[in-house]
């Protein structure tokens, strides 16, 4: 009962945040000087602009426009690209661009977690050892190299000069799985570098703090093995922070993949966002950004909710 009420409250809060965020976005769009329809289709005759104003609801004032956009979204009408005379439904574009981004993010997360969990645990356990210091400084440097620089440099070295993989492109995993994974290596690497660094640092700090907790000493004083202490008593409470942060990154990464998708020519959602912003397709842009922020808020709330239910510590705070 308690949980259901909490879920309900979350949903209400989530919807409020998304509605306000998207409304502000529409408001932002209306800040554009001049006629928004002229921004959408710069070289169209007035008649066409009138038609587009009608179709998008731009003619109905900010609230009318927003309501039309929102109700359209709820009914699965995600708006259109009006570029260059023709138009394409955003939903059609989404169908194409979501899978590559999701795969990219998924792989980056898997790689980052697979690397950072052992690294973080070991370097925390051996705090201030040589291993810890080397790992820390390497990761410290790695996190400071922006994805665009690492992407470009990786592509130069491994694709252009060594020719191990193709520098660009995307293949569906269902059509050509080998090629899919090969093409994903470089973009996933350049995304995962930063992620691994921040996850490892996060986990390390958390584990070091946890190791100092009385309950860890208590567990050790039972005479159980170090390994068991580390996994059963240290990792689990520490992993909550890590997983929370990983899940939060899911939403953030959708936006963060823009650069990587552009450098490696992956037709994902980041690519489409950059494109729609560049082409001033404000309706499509609003939809895409709304989806990203929805994803972010959704992951955020879900993780919060799950930790709320599974991690007794947050319940403790609540009580």
């Amino acid at each position, binding site marked *: 009962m308690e949980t259901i009420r909490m879920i309900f409250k979350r949903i209400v809060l989530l919807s409020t945040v998304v509605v306000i965020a998207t409304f502000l976005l529409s408001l932002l769009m209306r800040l554009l000087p*001049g*006629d928004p329809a*002229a921004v959408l*289709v*710069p*070289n*169209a*005759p*007035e*008649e*066409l*602009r*009138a*038609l*587009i104003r009608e179709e998008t609801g731009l003619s109905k004032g900010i609230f009318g426009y927003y309501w039309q956009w929102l109700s359209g979204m709820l009914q699965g009408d995600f708006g259109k690209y*009006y*570029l*260059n*005379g*023709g*138009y*394409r439904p955003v939903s*059609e*574009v989404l169908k*194409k*661009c979501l899978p590559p981004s999701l795969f990219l993010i998924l792989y980056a997360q898997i790689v980052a977690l697979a690397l950072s969990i052992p690294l973080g645990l070991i370097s925390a356990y051996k705090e201030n050892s040589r291993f810890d210091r080397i790992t820390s400084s390497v990761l410290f440097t790695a996190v400071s190299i922006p994805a665009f620089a690492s992407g470009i440099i990786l*592509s130069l070295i491994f*694709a*252009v000069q060594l*020719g191990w993989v*193709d*520098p*660009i*492109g995307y293949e569906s995993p269902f059509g050509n799985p080998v090629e899919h994974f090969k093409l994903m290596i470089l973009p996933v690497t350049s995304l995962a570098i930063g992620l691994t660094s921040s996850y490892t640092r996060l986990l390390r700090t958390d584990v070091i703090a946890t190791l100092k907790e009385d309950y860890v000493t208590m567990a050790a004083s039972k005479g159980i093995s170090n390994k068991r202490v580390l996994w059963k008593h240290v990792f689990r409470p520490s992993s909550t922070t890590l997983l929370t942060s990983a899940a939060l990154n899911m939403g953030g990464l959708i936006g963060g993949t823009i650069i990587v998708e552009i*450098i490696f*020519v992956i*037709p994902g959602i980041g*690519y*489409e966002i950059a*494109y729609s912003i*560049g*082409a*001033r397709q404000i309706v499509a842009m609003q939809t895409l950004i709304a989806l990203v922020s929805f994803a972010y808020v959704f992951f955020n709330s879900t993780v919060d909710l799950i930790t709320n239910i599974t991690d007794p510590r947050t319940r403790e705070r609540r009580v």
Partner: protein
Amino acid sequence: MTQSQITRSRVMRRIGVAVAATIAISTLASTGSQAASNPSAPKYGGEVKVGIFDTFPGFCVGNNPANSALMATRTVYETLFEKTRGNDFVGLLAKSASVSADLKTWTVELRPGIKFHNGEAFNAAAAVTNFMNSSGMNFLGVAATKGPAAATAAYGHTLGTAVPFQSNVLKATAVGETTVVYSLDRPQNDFLGTLYASGRGFVRAPAQLIDKTTCSGTPIGTGPFKAVSFTTDEMIVAKNAEYWRKDPVTGNKLPYIDKITFTNIKESSSRQAAVQRGAIDAAMFSGASEGQYIQALRKQKQLVEYKSPAEYYPSLWLNQGKPGSPFKSKNARLAVLSCIDRVNWVKTRTKGEGVVSKSLVGPNNIMYTTSGFQKYSVEEAKKYVEAYKAETGATELAFAGPTDTSSVSVGNAKFFQTMMAKCGIKYDFVTEEGAVIIGKAFNPSPAAGSHYNAYDSIAILLFEGTDTTFNLPFVLTNGFASTSKNPLAGIFRTSIGSILGLNHHSNTDVDKLFYEGQAAQSKALAASKYKAGTALLQTEAIMGATFYFSYELFAGKSLGGIGKTPIELKKTQRLMTNWGIDWAGVYKTK
């Protein structure tokens, strides 16, 4: 001058007509023949990936894909005519054409038995439907009875930019199944160029044209390949088993390849690396901005270069019409045009791949003349600046122009800015997405207080080829002549007709000279009129030029048959143009 706008511009793909066949075959024809030294019998099947550098905006009349995207589009759509390497016309969907003595009635015979991908027959009625759509006649018909909004609703979101190019046609009539008669307003010796053209002359299935909701997303043509899917950056086409063409030499049924994927790889280095590595089978490049990549790829033994003639002439348009623009003053125009350091531009910006201009167009073009062309001189430019200040009382000569967001374009703009600064001219650039720039430069209905062309100046590729059909609407004061009997002239003279002349000059002597050229009965007379027109444009400093260049396609040796399959015997279409190669006869060797 921002050349990459040039290469990327989504405007106006042009039409050419060979009135004078002065063009030498591509100097690189021999390069193309390297493939011949590696003979292998054509094979069926296989998939091909091609790298291009433009996006796909859609496939209806109103959508105007740019150069390299047109290469993909032309695998689906075909034109009535093609141009040969000898600058003659060869019928593609058409069989032949004839013209009346007064040059005002053109009769086109179509090839029989051709079918669209959806099974519809390609016939005279279909050709007329296509003309009615692209010329705006259909739009006008609905607009007249039901109003412009209904017309827009019926014919998609925008009209094609082909409208001014076809403004000289009063009527197209189907006579029987395979004959179309075009009645012209003024005499025109180069009319066939209107029916060829990069994109403007594409023939679409009537079913596609009628349905505005699917028009831009579902291309249905007669071409060797059928569209499978497309996104902004990728188009996939698959073999059209019913294709009508056969190799006239071997009698093989075309096409050979099963599937082609065209991918937009915006970044030149990525495209270069991809084709060099063999990740893609072929990639297209522009000599205007990708010199270093072209030169690097030339060194690759595993690749073959296919080069277009150097017939692409970017120019700098100075807007005389916009309020606040300094270019109403001839001194201001002369100052800017005298300040263009072409030699260093070509060296620095095109890495030597461009050719320094001596005229608004290259020597291959019938309009070519060096007369009146403004030469580079900082001293002269400074004098003109002073004269401009004295004339107008302005404290400085300052103007602005747009540049797209690519690093090459920004680099060009920066270079241009520094160049202008040396002559004491202040140039500001605005970075905007290419499509936005085009929209604002060619704006049919500007808001109150603004102008059709929003920019003081714009560097853009509008001139090309060996003839004038494609160039004319841009240099005239209006795409519709003042005397035009075209029913569209009334409503379009103010909007569509006037937007093409980006400089918005009012020198009707120019119109006169070019119309006389079109009406000339002899090539020599036509040439002299055109050259006089060009000279006038140059003397009056209405627009300027820096260099001209060619397009290249690099393909791996796994691709055979490029440029080897003529449409008809002895009538081989061009090997390589700004809209790429003909893919119908290409096959995979492995």
